[in-house]
């Protein structure tokens, strides 16, 4: 690795503090679960901008607020435990601080201050003015932890502001502290932990004169001792082979030096905290302890997990489902009719294209929104409350067997909502290998788009037994997922399994605001990515299935379907079912729409009857199996390419699923035929 830590092009995108008079860039840093997002919202309510960090898929949030004549531009840095370049998040946070040298608000959890101050110890090495925000003071109070902010302030040499961000307490004080630091930045650089270790000194002398701005030799020396891969690569290129060799040998001889460095940092932290914090001799049994007795219990915990996940699904389909049908039946039909009337002057083909292609396609997206909103809200509640970490804990053993670890549970579960955000959510998995495997397995999680197809076609074919059939199909998918996981982790993407290290945060009740925000943002991400694609694709499908005409039987799509029909026959599927499956490539939700077009039924009600008459149950079941396993949709493929940075992995996934789906469909149909069922 020899890439430069801060590419110039990337750095110029960061907005400079001195752009406008009275406008100052302030960075917000903190470890995960210290309530950073709540503080960010508290400071900048209403004036926010969400984007991505340049060249990265990590979300970047910025907002503005005023203190007197001062306009603050607050940049919310990704939540990180430290500033070692172990992940994109940490790299972004430290590159930003290194480049911009902004005043940094470091947020700490008042109930776990030592750990939170570790990040402060790291930030202090970057030579920037700092404000320390102590969040969750109420939780600390409850636990009998007594904190004297003034004592801490004197020890650290920076303003310390107590906060209860969820209740909005401390906002004015925090803004005032930021203003003080902005007015006199030189005065508020935090004291640094002095780490007098011989090896550090030697290393620094070897580096001196070779380290370009904005880096500091001492900081680089520390990071080398920590095994920071990015800086190891950078240092090698700064020093050249001659200068690098002694450094390399020194590092090899002091493998354990980092433990010393970390120890020295905590000694410093303990000195800082010592006089300012009084803890009860014996920690009280907190709500978290009580809940964890059940939530992490090997038996009750798993039972609870099944109930909780079941509730999320139940809520998704009992609240979201009817809304979806209502939108489909009343709202969209009405819009279609209105538009059709308004286009009375236009030729028939344009009216059909608009109503069936464009509005039909947009409808596919819009009707999915209620289901996605409810699902993502449920996910946000689980995440914000701290329960998701317990779920990952419980499932780690199981996930281990398929080559993953507990954290992969989160993206895979998001996959039930939509595979696109699931691929993005795989970022919680730190190692490249674990992330890759998670991404490759994601398309095997049936998304709402597929579940809708199963619910619809299943109801037609199996009547009252439909929920049972759906459950069986989902279970079958998960079995295939596990099998693919085992095969891939053993033979395809080999390598060491990632360390499972995860903080179990304290439980707290999620706020309506943060849940609504997460649900809205995830849903919007889906609509934005998939929306335009689905509309475009449904127009294309509509055209392909109506031309040259005069009816769908004589269309381009029919020709394609007939050409592939021999393959379909293995699975008992006629050309219409084959074409419907292919249209799912664009978006899984398309399948029902295509069936509607091909079986010549415009309203959903008509399609029920047409399908029941034309498709024998064995073929129907095979069709559903294929739906569940078929290649990822275009949006998912694009997301996979984005996240892995290469076309190779989406292609591997597509090829794999093509084979799996063909095999699954064929086995299902042939087995049903052998047994003489439903032919």
């Amino acid at each position, binding site marked *: 690795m020899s890439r430069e830590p801060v590419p110039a092009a990337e750095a110029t995108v960061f907005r400079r503090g001195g752009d406008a008079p009275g406008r100052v860039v302030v960075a917000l840093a903190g470890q995960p679960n210290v309530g950073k997002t709540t503080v960010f919202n508290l400071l900048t309510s209403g004036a926010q901008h969400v984007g991505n960090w340049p060249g990265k898929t990590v979300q970047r949030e910025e907002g503005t607020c005023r203190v007197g004549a001062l306009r603050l531009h607050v940049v919310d840095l990704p939540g990180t*435990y*430290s500033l*070692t370049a*172990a992940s994109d998040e940490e790299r972004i946070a430290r590159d930003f601080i290194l480049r911009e040298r902004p005043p940094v608000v470091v947020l700490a959890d008042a*109930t*776990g*201050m*030592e*750990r939170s101050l*570790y*990040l402060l110890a790291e930030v202090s090495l970057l030579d920037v003015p700092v404000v320390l925000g102590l969040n969750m003071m109420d939780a600390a109070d409850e636990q009998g932890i007594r904190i004297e902010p003034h004592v801490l302030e004197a020890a650290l040499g920076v303003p310390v502001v107590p906060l209860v961000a969820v209740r909005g307490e401390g906002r004015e004080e925090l803004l005032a502290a930021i203003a003080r630091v902005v007015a006199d930045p030189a005065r508020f650089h935090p004291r640094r932990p002095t780490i007098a270790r011989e090896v550090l000194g030697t290393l620094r002398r070897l580096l001196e004169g070779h380290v370009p701005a904005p880096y500091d030799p001492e900081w680089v020396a520390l990071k080398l*001792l*920590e*095994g920071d*891969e990015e800086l190891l690569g950078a240092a090698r290129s700064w020093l050249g082979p001659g200068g690098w060799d002694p450094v390399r040998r020194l590092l090899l001889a002091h*493998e354990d030096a*980092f*433990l010393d460095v*970390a*120890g020295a*940092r*905590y000694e410093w932290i*303990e000195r800082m905290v010592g006089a300012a914090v009084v*803890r009860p001799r014996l*920690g009280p049994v907190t709500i*978290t*302890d009580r809940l*964890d*007795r059940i939530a*992490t*219990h*090997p038996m009750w915990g798993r039972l609870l997990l099944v109930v909780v996940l079941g509730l999320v699904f139940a809520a998704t389909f009992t609240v979201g489902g009817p809304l979806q049908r209502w939108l489909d039946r009343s709202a969209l039909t009405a819009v279609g009719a209105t538009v059709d009337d308004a286009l009375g002057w236009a030729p028939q083909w344009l009216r059909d294209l608009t109503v069936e292609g464009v509005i039909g396609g947009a409808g596919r997206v819009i009707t999915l929104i209620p289901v996605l909103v409810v699902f993502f809200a449920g996910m946000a509640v689980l995440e914000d409350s701290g329960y998701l*970490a317990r779920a*990952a*804990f*419980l499932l*780690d*053993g199981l996930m*281990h067997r398929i080559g993953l*670890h*507990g954290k992969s549970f989160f993206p895979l579960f998001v996959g039930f909502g939509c595979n696109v955000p699931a691929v993005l959510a795989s970022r919680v998995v730190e190692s490249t290998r674990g992330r890759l495997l998670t991404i490759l397995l994601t398309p095997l999680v049936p998304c709402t788009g597929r579940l809708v197809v199963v619910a619809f076609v299943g109801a037609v074919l199996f009547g009252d037994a439909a929920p049972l059939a759906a459950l069986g199909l989902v279970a079958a998918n998960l079995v295939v997922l596990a099998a693919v996981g085992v095969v891939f982790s053993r033979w395809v993407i080999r390598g060491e*399994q990632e*360390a*499972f*290290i*995860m*903080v*179990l*945060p304290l439980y707290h009740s999620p706020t309506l605001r943060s849940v609504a925000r997460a649900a809205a943002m995830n849903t919007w991400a889906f609509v934005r990515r998939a929306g335009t694609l689905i509309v475009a694709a449904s127009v294309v499908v509509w055209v392909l299935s109506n031309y040259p005409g005069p009816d769908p039987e004589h269309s381009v799509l029919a020709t394609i379907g007939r050409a592939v029909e021999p393959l379909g026959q293995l699975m008992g599927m006629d050309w219409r079912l084959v074409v419907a499956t292919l249209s799912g490539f664009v978006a899984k939700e398309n399948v029902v729409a295509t069936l509607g077009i091909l079986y010549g039924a415009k309203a959903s009600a008509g399609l029920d009857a047409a399908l029941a008459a034309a498709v024998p149950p064995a073929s129907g079941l095979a069709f559903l199996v294929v739906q569940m396993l078929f290649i990822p949709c275009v949006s998912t493929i694009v997301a996979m390419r984005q996240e892995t940075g290469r076309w190779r992995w989406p292609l591997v996934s597509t090829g794999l699923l093509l084979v799996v789906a063909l095999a699954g469909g064929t086995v299902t149909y042939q087995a049903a035929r052998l047994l003489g069922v439903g032919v």
Partner: protein
Amino acid sequence: MPRRRIHGKRDSPATVSVMPLNDLTAGTIGAVHRLLGGRLFASRLAALGVSIGVEVTVLRNNRSGPLVMMARGTRIALGRGEAGKVLVEVTSDVAGAGSGG
């Protein structure tokens, strides 16, 4: 937060035992003695509050799957393999406390 150095006061050498974390039952308290498993592993643990000499309490050890420990007021879940790389000097063995499995 009380801290016990490895080479600090010991009552008698016979009562001191260094064991990997995954062999300890819930309720056991000890001081981190060594971290095997390389720089990055150690630096990730350090960022969560686990450094040499720090007092840790095992909160849950289900005998299979990961375990939960408390260090500096933070609950940390560790995979079984990772827990095996954390060597702990046991200071107080509360056998039967909490729940084991």
